[in-house]
């Protein structure tokens, strides 16, 4: 089946099974290895992408489900000004340790700030509540998102 969608801004046609997982296709076919398979069942958020402007688990999306939609991965997002602000903020408070969860958490941060540019701490925790991190204990991540919201004022 031919599946048409946009991938990081480019019109893309995927030729394959409609039941292939978006996660596998991104990693194996398009070599976008920023999406990680942490659990494969929606629990960890390491596979998150932005699907039509909203955070989505690519392990829970069959290719047919993205037909006609817009997919952004961390590789596409990192070309934006907003990414640069988040990148600096995460680095400034050591919100990244092994980095496995980071692409998903950065995209979750983007989706949160896009609808709520100045979230409270509790709102930040809710915004990243589907993204597990085994290293940082979350406080540094929450702090980083607060800093990004402050430093990037007006960008979101």
């Amino acid at each position, binding site marked *: 089946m031919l599946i048409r969608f946009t991938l990081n801004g480019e019109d893309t046609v995927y030729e394959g099974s*409609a*039941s292939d997982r978006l996660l596998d296709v991104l990693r194996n076919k398009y070599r976008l290895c920023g999406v990680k398979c942490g659990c494969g*069942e929606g629990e960890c958020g390491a596979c998150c992408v932005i699907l039509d402007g909203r955070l989505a*688990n690519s392990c*829970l999306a069959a290719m047919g489900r993205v037909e006609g939609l817009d997919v952004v991965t961390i590789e596409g997002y990192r070309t934006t000004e907003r990414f640069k602000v988040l990148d600096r903020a995460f680095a400034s408070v050591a919100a990244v340790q092994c980095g496995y969860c980071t692409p998903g958490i950065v995209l979750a941060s983007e989706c949160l700030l896009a609808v709520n540019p100045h979230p409270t701490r509790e709102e930040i925790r809710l915004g990243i509540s*589907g993204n597990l991190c085994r290293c940082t204990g979350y406080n540094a991540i929450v702090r980083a998102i607060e800093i990004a919201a402050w430093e990037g004022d007006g960008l979101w």
Partner: protein
Amino acid sequence: MVDGYTPRSLSEALSLLSSHGLTPYAGGTDLMTKGYRHEGYLFLHRIPELRHITETRSELRFGACCTFTEILESKTAPAILKEAVSRIASPSIRNLGTIGGNIANGSDKADSAFIFFVTDSSVRIASCRGERTVPIKDLYLGRNKLALERDELIVEVIMPKRWLGNYRYEKIGARKSLAISLVLFAGLMSIEDGKIAHCATSYGVDSGVIVRRSDIDEIMIGLTVEEARAAKDSYIKAYDGAISPGRGRVSAEYSKVVCMNLLADFLSSMGI
């Protein structure tokens, strides 16, 4: 090889479903975790007739493919539904998961279906053969078993507006996010001119199907608060006999005690 379809209208979807024996795919959050299967999917996300949230004088209508996030963002959805939906999974899963999938999944702990039970909502179902609208309660035959034919699609949920104001909703889970419910309770009660005009409760307790016993709730209807206090014991006793939890993530005994406590607490909060 064609192994999936993305129809752009409901009639196209229904005719594909009747001729090809496909599996409807809405958000995929249940399907994709049930093993990785190569089968013919009928993708529903591009069908506008399944995406609406509308309101008439007496009813609310929610298209089957409304995601949980769309419910939360809607001005029309009532507080009881929003509260339940806000506790489902995580933001990214709420962006994908739909109410139609939640109903069709057939779980006795499906959080949005649970609200459709306590509000006595109906479900409109369509196939090439025609349409039918059934009370949600009649759609469930047993654990994960629905009275839904292979060629039928859930089109929308129809919720009566009248009694939604005064509610209580409790989801007992092991943690704040990504928590499948251990026990669910919801109650609606309206008191008009000093009398109970409406009383409805539901229980999610691993008993196969969500418990909704309007015949028991009727005990309270028409009573004054004073009379309801006198009837309280027999009302609670009736539920004690009617709720028989199965063994889920928690013991049946635990579920039962929690349900009875929540019911008693609900009544006290209404002054009963």
